[in-house]
């Protein structure tokens, strides 16, 4: 079974209780053909374990890397991914859309 949003957020709470650093990444805006709608989320813990998705798998790696920073310093961050946006993030969405992802620490 795929991870549903409620399972993902439950996992975030459980990780936090277990003493992990946890970050929540949420798609807050999409333009063009984006793979996941606004509100889709990814949760990441300080092991680099993640659940959920913010794209079709194109940018999750970059989001996880940024999330580890957010867990470490506690400051929220807005990420933007577009078509072959190599200068900004070195990853892009092959589907041709653009998405903004808000990454925040939990706790």
């Amino acid at each position, binding site marked *: *079974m795929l991870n*549903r949003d*409620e399972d993902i957020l439950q996992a975030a709470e459980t990780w936090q209780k277990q003493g992990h650093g946890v970050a*929540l990444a949420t798609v*807050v805006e999409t333009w063009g053909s984006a793979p996941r709608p*606004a*509100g889709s989320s990814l949760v990441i813990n300080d092991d680099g374990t993640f659940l959920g998705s913010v794209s079709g798998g194109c940018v999750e790696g970059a989001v996880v890397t940024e999330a580890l920073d957010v867990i470490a310093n506690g400051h929220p961050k*807005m990420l933007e991914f577009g078509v072959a946006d190599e200068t900004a993030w070195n990853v892009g969405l092959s589907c041709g859309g653009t998405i903004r992802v*808000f990454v925040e620490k939990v*706790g």
Partner: protein
Amino acid sequence: MKLETLRELNAERAARRPVIIVTDTSNGEQRLVKAKDIPSDPLRAEIATQLRMGKSANVEVGGKKLFLNVYAPTAKLVIIGAVHISQALAPIARALDYDVTVVDPRTAFASPERFPDVPLIAEWPDVALPPLNVDHYTAFVAVTHDPKIDDPALLHAFERDCFYVGALGSRKTHAKRADRLRALGAKEVDIARIHAPIGLPIGAVSPSEIAVAIMAEITAQLRLPPKEKEQAA
């Protein structure tokens, strides 16, 4: 997100109540709005619109850019009738993340061998349905073809304002059903909401194909804006 906010969010969702998280994305400031507090919230108009569409979105209020993350409850599917179509429908619906329950008082049909891994209630609708908390976020499908079972179940679905109500049967069968429901005191507006013949017209023949047609119709009802919904029906 504060741990307290996450806890409240998970608790509201476990109770199948809609909840909204409002985030100022410029600084991370955040608050949670419970369903019961929406009418008194300063963003009540914006929140109500997004909740109706089941869509998260950005809004600009007083020069602030706010993200409204809408968490509607996970959709449920209640299937009346442990028939061949239901054996195909239950796993498709589960793959689409629905919480599925099958109800059929006929124990020969409602057997775990025929429905592995699906919650199955071998009781009449009047006993089986009240504890299921059928609500607006529930799709309700009656496929026994037996009025004794389907009719009282449909009356329950009307009471609970299900977002989708479908019933198996040809136009002729459905016309008879409508007469029976009227005699039982059902309102015209509720009878008109029944999708029958059930499923999108894709020429489905086998039970599995009919299950696909039903699931496609439920998806359209859940996701399409009202105008396009009429065209799809």
